[in-house]
């Protein structure tokens, strides 16, 4: 029975990344974090460029973790939809709150 049960277990190795890939992703995440922090200390970067660069690197790190560590890259489209759908709603909530409260602070303010 135990053998039958064990035989019924699916193989979990095929659809996932290898240890080497995981380590490469971790190195990429560490480098991106270091660049993010270092960017803060570069003098004279325009505000818009700084914010855009930080958000871009953050998004890249986000999708690296979701795609490789959470295996969403290799997972079923249903699982992907279950996460990406609410993620889009979450971003919409943030933008809606900023718009409602007139607080688009990420963008430079133009005082008339």
């Amino acid at each position: 029975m135990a053998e039958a049960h064990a035989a019924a277990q699916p193989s979990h190795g095929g659809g996932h990344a290898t240890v080497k890939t995981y380590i490469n992703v971790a190195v990429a995440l560490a480098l991106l974090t270091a660049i993010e922090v270092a960017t803060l200390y570069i003098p004279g970067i325009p505000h818009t460029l700084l914010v855009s660069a930080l958000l871009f690197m953050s998004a890249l790190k986000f999708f690296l973790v979701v795609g490789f560590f959470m295996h969403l890259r290799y997972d079923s489209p249903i699982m992907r939809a279950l996460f990406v759908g609410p993620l889009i709603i979450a971003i919409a909530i943030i933008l809606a709150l900023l718009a409602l409260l007139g607080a688009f602070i990420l963008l430079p303010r133009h005082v008339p």
Partner: protein
Amino acid sequence: MADHTATHAIHDPNIGTTGLDHRKMGMWIFLGSDCMFFGSLIGTYLAYKGKSLSGPGPHDVFNIPLTSYSAALLLASSLFMVLALTRLNEDRIKAAAFWLFATAAFGLHFVLNQVYEFTTFALDEGLTLSTSLFGSSFFVLTGFHGAHVTGGVLWLSILMVLALRGKLDRRDYTKVEIAGLYWHFVDIVWIAIFTIVYLIP
């Protein structure tokens, strides 16, 4: 009897008509809802940013080197989590238990850093939950994240103890994978908080 056993073995009650594991699907649904929860908290923080009438502002109190170190801890723990899962899949239970321990230990270190940060803010800078809009929105957002990390540390510790007691093996892969999904989610939320709250001037 043999036929019955074979049928029983093939039909896994956790697999539904979609061919997907209910438990894993449930975790993704939970993570999706938690995404919206943290989206609301981040939106609230941003909407109130710079509108406090009293108390210190974000960049009067933030300790970027400490927070960067905390971010590195969580990123490293995410790598340890996938290594634990890989070792479990290879049925190397002791190695899986070691990586689960490393993941939980780094998570605990993160929480202790946060406790230190919150204490410093309160005692040295006079910033508490009720000081200002910034204090309220900051502590609620990062506090909820810290609570999630604490929950994850407890969950991983339980899995590690089960592994050390011989009550966790390759057949429990999905259970550990679900804990891993939760842990990586905690990591991605911190990736967002770290940039939006701490780094963006």
